[in-house]
């Protein structure tokens, strides 16, 4: 059985792209959330093995959601998805317990490497 991953991003385009990458490489997408609030809810209902978390999102942003999820589950594995120019926020996320991060534009190889490592 493939490991379960929760995808969090406010752009449908990004979610679909990530979903394709993950599913083609044998992972199961346990759910998708389009903002931090949904992410926290879905983390609890779907209990995924890993979360990919966008940083900039409406309602509750990725860093707040990360903190909340780590509060709920101290072992939660969260990989941040960031873009160029977000150094500061990525650092904040790492301090808050993100285990890794990937930088957009997503490239299949990089995404899979990061996910493989995070789950090994």
């Amino acid at each position: 059985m493939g490991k379960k991953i929760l995808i969090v991003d406010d752009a449908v385009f990004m979610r679909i792209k990530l979903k394709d990458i993950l599913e083609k490489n044998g992972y199961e997408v346990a759910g998708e959330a389009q903002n931090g609030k949904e992410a926290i809810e879905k983390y609890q209902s779907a209990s995924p093995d890993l979360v990919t978390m966008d940083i900039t999102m409406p309602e509750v942003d990725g860093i707040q959601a990360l903190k909340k999820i780590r509060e709920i589950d101290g072992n939660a594995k969260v990989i941040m998805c960031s873009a160029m120019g977000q150094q500061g926020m990525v650092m904040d996320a790492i301090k808050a317990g993100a285990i890794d991060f990937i930088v957009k534009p997503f490239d299949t190889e990089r995404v899979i490497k990061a996910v493989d490592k995070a789950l090994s």
Partner: protein
Amino acid sequence: MDDNSAYRELFFEESEDNLQKLNDNVLELEKEPDNKDLINEIFRAAHTLKGSSATMGYDVMTKLTHRMEDIFDLFKTDKLKVNGDHISLIFKCLDKLTELLNDLQDDKELSEDQISELITELNKVETSATGKAVEDTPTESSQEAKKPQVKLDTVFASLEEPDLDVVKQAKSSGHNVFAIAIRLDQGTLLKGPRVFLIMQKLDEEGDVVHTEPTADLLENGNFDTDFKLIFVTNSSLDEVKSIINSSSEIDQVIIEDFDGEKAMKAQEERKKNPPTPQKAPAKPKAAASAKSVAKKAKSGAPKHETAHHPRNQSIRVDLGRLDRFLNLVSELVVYRNQMEDSSHRNDLDGIKDSLEQVSRLTSELQDLVLRIRMQQVSLVFSRFPRMIRDLSRDLHKEMDLVIIGEDTELDKTVVTELGEPLIHLLRNSADHGIEDPETREKLGKPRKGTITLSAYQEGNQVIITLEDDGKGIDPQVIKKSAEEKGINTEGMSEDELRLLIFHPGFSTAKKITNISGRGVGLDAVKTKITGLGGSIEMRSQVNVGSKFIIKLPLTLSIIQALMVKIGNENFAIPLDVVEKVVMLDESEIISTAENEVYRYQGGIIPIIRTNELLKIKSTAEDKKFAIIVKSDQQYFGILADQLIGQKEIVIKKIDPVLQKINRYQGATIFNNGSIALILDVNALCQGKGKVKS
């Protein structure tokens, strides 16, 4: 780069949404420059655009959105105050993005030139805010073009005695000390945070006592791909290795036991003999060639797939409607099966029963499909506030646009076609209608003009009105202008004079502005609207304002029609133009000098002898039917030999060549398979009108 062609449609759809969102929000921002929520929302939309376009590999678009995002970030952090010029510049960028998206949709390659001007402007704004010159962020590809690399090793360059002391102490108290060299992947982005992540993980298991380059440089990402450190820990070498390897984008790691004396010696050695780059660095080269292959594939392969695929028109459908559709179709299948069953048993009553259900279902389906094709007028209306904003800046006039009823629905085709004529009318109102603030004040009007655009449904029609409180259209000015152009205005009423503005080549603007063009406009507007099966009227009062009223059919493809016979041929006349049908005797038609007319409601109206016009031999001798139709606010009598009745007909397109003769709107198919042409009443009557003048 991955093949992204599968995501194209989605990308375009979402990007267009984001652009519209940006347009709306930026417009809002101009009114509330301090609204932080708004700025955040704008920032997010720009950010998403950047991320998506980067993923698709559209570099030019990524670059522009990236720079725009920088500006929004300055707004966000209060380093830059929002002002009108910034807003205008952002709008220019948004327009450019729309252009880029269109180009991409047409499979055109984008070039940096398309955005260089805007980038310069954006740079200026950014520089003025930060006081720093903006360095042209090198694109990732240029960073990828790396010089050949030296072999990774753990030889340090700036070890000093105090470092060694720390190491000695650590060793004596039983700790492990490792020299670690790490090489990040080629082209790794955000190197600072990457190092930070690794350091963070190491810090949990021990102490990093020395780094090369220095910690500052590392955290700012100011290094190539390699860095070295000395790590004091209780963990074993393998444990440290797995800690480091739990982070991604690491190309190579070397971990060795650290020996202070050896390290100092190696350092001295290195100073004398700096390492030479390897001649054949296997890894980077392979990576580079792989990349160039990938690039070739990117520019070459997908092109073949997409070169000729025409731009898809898509429509968003409410899921509820689609579900209903499915229900109806499954019901239809049930009755079809019943019908089959009945026909096997030769059960005529059974067939009739099912047939009744089938006909009910088909009309429901028909109705539903039409509704699925319906779109809200907001689809076009939504871009107008922005336009009026730009116009009021360009024209130095103050005006507001009020939009009412933007959720009114119309057939998709009509909605899309509606944009152009409405833009024209709006520009006219802004340019010629609304006066400048000073004049308005003198007239006792508020300084700010108001343009009201409203839409509502009325029966089978949608009415769109566009009203301004400007100077109105003075019939005398039109009269004068018309006479200058050699148009005979004798005996024309004020209303008729006003109608002249719809005539080809008529313009009342004293000077040509680039806002509303050279007056080729209003007749084009009229042609477009009538082409959509609609009509346009205008009311105006000097110094009070003008009002344009556009009436459009709810849907284009199915209409109510009056079926008539002219000679032995069947014709359809759209019912919405028919006022009345009267029976008349040949003797009631009066011949004037150049026209044949008929007395109707106390006035006289022109008679159109369709049989002569269409060259058909009439069958009725003296008793005829006159179909009284209204076209362009005037009545006409269209003669027909026989009435068949009222019918709902499906409009089929006819050959463009046939369309050019300006007699028929289309054709429809009868139950028995025969064909009837649909008369283009407006064209017939206007032809007549021209004869008159």
